[in-house]
């Protein structure tokens, strides 16, 4: 009897603990999101003042105008490409992390992976400006080696954006894949080799499939980050890149068309949510097959 009362008091206490953060998230996360949703249905007049009427006008604009459609597709494409490149590069890095010969080396790799994440995204992006600028590092080295005679214009294009994306987001792919790699029982690799499979075949048929959970985790994070980034492409690619977050930034900060910005934001959110849901579904199917 006494225990149940104690448990009830305990539960009450836990609920009291939970309330502040629930309230906070409710007011400052859920509420703004709902308001944004409502905002996206508002109309604007030619002077960008909001009218009290509601319609699908903003969404119509997003989905019928050529520019915005192209922007959406190129945003998704860039995010996809970034994810693919990150996955490919993540494997050797994860392999080194898992197979490092000593704890010291492993810690070093961790520091290399994680410390950039703790700086500001402006800093990480700024570094690329320093590297790719006309008087930046790459040009300086190439000029010194007489490979080129004129500095190359490496910034202000989508390639620079993708390179910067990959470098910024790679750790988010490496860590889950490394975790997955680490969970594979070492005997599996030996079993595969004992049956006649060489290293490459063992990797493709055994190791790779067993890291699917890590791959999917990493892909979810990288894709969402890449689809929603605006600071990096702004600084490295310039305002004119066809990326949805940039268009949103433009609409909100420069043109002051908040409803359109809201509609675009929600569109972005929906697309990212769809991709994340699909990936999550694949993961569920895989885990069902493996674990029952």
């Amino acid at each position, binding site marked *: 009897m006494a225990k149940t009362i104690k448990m009830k008091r305990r539960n009450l206490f836990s609920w009291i603990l939970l309330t502040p953060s629930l309230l906070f998230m409710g007011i400052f996360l859920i509420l703004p999101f709902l308001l944004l949703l409502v905002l996206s249905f508002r109309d604007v007049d030619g002077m960008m003042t909001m009218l009290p009427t509601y319609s699908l006008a903003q969404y119509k604009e997003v989905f019928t105008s050529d520019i915005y459609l192209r922007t959406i597709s190129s945003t998704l494409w860039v995010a996809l490409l970034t994810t693919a490149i990150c996955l490919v590069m993540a494997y050797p890095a994860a392999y080194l992390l898992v197979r490092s010969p000593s704890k010291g080396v492993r810690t070093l790799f961790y520091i290399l992976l994680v410390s950039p994440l703790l700086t500001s995204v402006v800093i990480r992006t700024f570094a690329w400006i320093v590297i790719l600028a006309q008087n930046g590092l790459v040009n300086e080295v190439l000029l010194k080696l007489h490979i080129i005679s004129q500095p190359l214009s490496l910034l202000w294009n989508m390639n620079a954006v993708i390179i910067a994306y990959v470098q910024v987001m790679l750790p988010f792919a490496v860590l889950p894949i490394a975790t997955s790699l680490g969970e594979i029982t070492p005997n599996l690799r030996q079993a595969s080799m004992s*049956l006649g499979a060489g290293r490459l075949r063992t990797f493709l048929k055994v190791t790779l499939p067993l890291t699917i959970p890590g791959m999917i985790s990493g892909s979810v994070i990288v894709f969402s980050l890449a689809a929603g980034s605006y600071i990096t492409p702004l600084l490295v690619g310039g305002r004119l890149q066809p990326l949805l977050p940039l268009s949103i930034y433009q609409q909100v900060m420069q043109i002051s068309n908040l409803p359109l910005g809201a509609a675009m934001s929600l569109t972005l959110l929906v697309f990212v949510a769809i991709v994340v849901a699909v990936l999550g579904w694949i993961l569920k199917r895989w885990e069902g097959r493996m674990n029952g």
Partner: protein
Amino acid sequence: MSNITIRQVSRQFGANTALKQVDLEVREGEFFSLLGPSGCGKTTLLNIIAGFLEPSTGEVLIGGREVTDLPPYKRDIGMVFQNYALFPHLSVFENVAYGLKIRKLPKAEIRKRVEESLASVRLEEFAKRMPHQLSGGQQQRVAIARALAIQPRVLLLDEPLSNLDAKLRKEMQTELRSLQQSVGITTVLVTHDQEEALTLSDRIGILGNGELQQLGSPMEVYRRPANRFVAEFIGQVNLFEARKAPSGGEVPAGTISYLTDKYRLSSEQPLALIAAGIPELEGKESVLFMLRPERVQLSLERNLQETNQAELCVTDVSYAGNSLRIAGTLPGGGELIVQAPDPSFSVLPEPGQIFYARWAPEDLIPLV
């Protein structure tokens, strides 16, 4: 089917020597066990045969061909692991077919071989299941089927039954033995369970401290252990150190008498042993003798004719169902352990009781 030759193989890990020097040959078609306590180097040796480890020195030959420089996937071996190592993302069928696909066999042939393999371990119904749906014993059988399906030259097993419970282990041992005999494949089993090794093997190699302590058939290894290590590792044993009797005592011709140092094994007379056939005892100052507990007879009366006899004061009795283990002290100190089959006593002996322990002279075996 091929034989395996291990020549002058040693292996170091940094400052630690796991294998000092091993030379042995596993004959074609034989069931060979590598037996020893943990850390003795047996798994290291198996991994060297398989190719997962390279020896620091020496060579490995399979079927007369040197394979030391070959990676595991080129050695045509079949391997079974302690934790089964079934591919969790592949079905039972796909697991067994894995090695066959690599060998590029035609689909029909693969299906036939997989079905045969699964039938040989009585798991034909389970082809479509996933490993996580199988019990430990079933997974191990699939692992065996997978290794045999590719018809390798040798079969290597690394403590395959250690993860199974005792009853299942006994069943699997029988199955393994009959499977090996019907296929006739050269097999090397690594185990720390000496009963398992004795039951299954044609020959046993006992490893201790990185060295081969003895190589022989189960009977040889049990009845005539080469040294103290083997005697103590295999089965239970009573050990006595015996010193040569001083000259001047009456010693019948053709025999060597030994009086023990710490106590007299018989109350009045020295031990008489059959020396014929053990010329190595000549000239030795002291020899270690072993006496298996199950070769000792207990009786309540003393036999006045018997020389190999001692008074035993019981200190402990354990009942194990099919046998009794009786420990007692001998006059002058020293312990003797006796194993008697269950029906020997209608009433269990009690601590403090006095018995007379007797054994045949040839059961007192010198370890030379």
